[in-house]
């Protein structure tokens, strides 16, 4: 019991000491604006945000200044500007960003919601800075915007969504282990991905022979824990491939291996052959069934003659096909069947 108490106290001390580093203690004196308190006092939004009903796509933002505050708060408790503490500075920055990047006018929206600001600013009463601006999913409450989403018509609202570079945090969340996850997420929404991501980004991993153009290859100073081929991956890539057979084919064709192994002099009869001694007479058949992609990496194409040179029909190794194997190919004429079953063999 005493040890547990000591541990809890120790953790509390560490947390307190690290509060600033962890972001628990704010560096700025500012805090989220007290919207809820004002609403509970019966103050209508437009009493402070006076110009919002006529604000267009350009011009100053509709944030109240100190003079507006002093209409009610006649004796301010501080000589500094009210906005230096009340309201987060980056909420204003976010609003400036939205003003620059979105095609949006408050007047038309206020008509649609009949002046009820909370229809869009649904979480404004919560005392958290990220809840002031409406989430993008809120826009889809209207048919027009939902249809624009369906049609991938980003330009209806965004000036240039790609340059905007702001990922929505309520959907399309690129979170967790997204490098692994992105394939299945993109399957049904490839065109949606393309609204922000370029072909270059896809091709940098999924293109043929792209290694020199890989972003991480050039981003020497951009260290990251995510990414597939970071740190010493190259040195243990054969172990990584064996741990998940077939995964490499997601980006690499079978020729990728032989290209690199030839360049690095790790191939065939070279002294740096990747196979252990006795490989040919040992477990190569079992390993070939488990991970045929790795075999094809070096022995594909013309290299297949190495296999059929020994494994003739009725020859050593028995039937190479696994249980239940079937194929629609013509065994006498189509590749690869004809290598073993072709006329004259």
């Amino acid at each position, binding site marked *: 019991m005493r040890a547990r108490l000591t541990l809890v106290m120790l953790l509390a001390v560490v947390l307190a000491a690290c509060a600033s580093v962890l972001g628990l203690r704010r560096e700025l004196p500012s805090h989220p604006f007290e919207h809820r308190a004002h609403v509970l006092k019966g103050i209508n939004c437009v009493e402070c945000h006076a110009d919002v009903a006529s604000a267009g796509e350009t011009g100053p933002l509709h944030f109240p200044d100190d003079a507006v505050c002093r209409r009610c708060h006649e004796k301010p408790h501080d000589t500094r500007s009210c906005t230096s503490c009340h309201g987060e500075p980056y909420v204003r920055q976010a609003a400036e960003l939205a003003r620059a990047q979105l095609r949006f006018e408050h007047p038309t929206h206020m008509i649609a919601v009949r002046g009820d600001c909370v229809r869009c600013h649904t979480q404004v009463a919560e005392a958290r800075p990220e809840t002031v601006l409406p989430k993008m999913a809120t826009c889809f409450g209207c048919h027009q915007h939902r249809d624009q989403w369906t049609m991938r018509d980003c330009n209806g609202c965004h000036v240039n969504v790609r340059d905007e570079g702001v990922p929505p945090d309520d959907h399309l969340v690129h979170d967790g282990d997204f490098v692994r*996850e992105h394939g299945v997420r993109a399957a049904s929404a490839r065109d949606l991905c393309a609204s922000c991501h370029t072909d270059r980004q896809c091709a940098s991993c999924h293109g*043929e022979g792209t290694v020199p153009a890989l972003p991480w290859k050039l981003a020497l100073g951009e260290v990251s824990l995510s990414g597939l081929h970071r740190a010493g991956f190259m040195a243990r890539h054969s172990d990584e491939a064996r741990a998940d057979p077939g995964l490499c084919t997601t980006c690499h064709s079978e020729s990728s291996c032989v290209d690199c192994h030839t360049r690095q002099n790790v191939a065939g009869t070279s002294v740096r052959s990747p196979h252990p001694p006795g490989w040919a007479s040992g477990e190569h058949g079992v390993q070939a069934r488990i991970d*045929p992609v790795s075999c094809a990496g070096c022995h594909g194409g013309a290299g297949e003659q190495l296999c059929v040179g020994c494994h003739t029909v009725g020859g050593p190794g028995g039937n190479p096909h696994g249980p239940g194997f079937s194929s629609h190919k013509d065994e006498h004429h189509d590749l690869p069947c004809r290598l073993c079953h072709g006329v004259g063999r």
Partner: protein
Amino acid sequence: MGLPSLAEADPLRLRGDALAETQGSSSPTGLIVLQGEDAPRSWVGVEGLVWAGARSSTVTGDVLVLAVRVREPHGYTEARVGRFVLATGAVHPVQIDGAHLIARAPWGSVVETFGGLPVAPRFGARSYDWIAGGRVAQTVASVGTLGVSYVQRREDGEISNEELGVDLATAPAKWLDVAAFGAYDVTSPGLAEARASAAVRWTDWRVELFGSQMSPGRLLPATSLFSVLGDMASQTVGATVRWRAAPRLDLLASGAGQDVAGGLGSNGWVRATLRLDDRGAGSLGLEVRRVDVPGVQWTGVRAIGAVPLGKGFRYSSEIEIVVPDNPDGRGVAWPWGLSALSWRSLSGWEVTGALEASSTPQQRYEADALVRLTYALGSATPGPQGGQYTGSR
């Protein structure tokens, strides 16, 4: 959540990169990468990325992307023509020289068709090698999309891949989204690949459950001799958990059980990332990873650190130590480390110098010096992705 800041309109990006590398006893390597993107009108965009490199007396290069995208302003039709990566539905990503057409209807129907010549690297050429297919999808009640795809690819005139695919994505609630796809091999009947992912989110947590099945023999071209060795599929089932433990501290853990051709195994990792400031300009990270599948067992620890030094300078370092369970004569530990110092000017220049050292299963000792020089035309802040992260909405 990153902090929002003003994004800069940046319609044209051209980058030149040069990389000097001394790798062990090999000679320096030079590399130039040029990429550009422009959208002179909202309905048309052009994109390109070419690179050229030299090592010893060998000079090579390639065109990675060179594509034009044309789009009807309201999204009813869209076309991509040129060299690009084709990926849609359950169709595996493939780089092609060809065309991809999309037609959409307001009620959520989508019809896609594509065709072209798969790219041979380094300006190579293949004969009678082409790919064609399509996808039909329907969005149902704005909460989900169901798609069916077909692809056929031929190499030297013979079928190398013929697949039917199904894909699904749904977000029935704000806190839940599910996605899955499956590709069925028509040539050698059976499931070639299937993946599924379901994620739930609430406040600072996100939990994703995932599963996959892959049949390596069916992922190879059907013209390969190795595609007929049978179907020893591997299955994976796992979960990833993300917890924003503090405003600047993210904890991420992932674990999966695997069945690799009948042998059971597992793998998992835990990551912690601490941002040193609200904008994430500096960060520290630690990862511990364990892989334990038949024939491959190792444990690794990786640490990263990036610190802005002011006046455009930035220092970063990355260290990793991997300890195999069975060294098998390949060394008891495989350490790797990189330290880099970067300088970035407001006029678009960026210089990075790095030292990389390692002891690997292949080399007892290896040390490289790397220098990268970048100049970005038309952009004040060059980045490896050509864009900048400015927050979230």
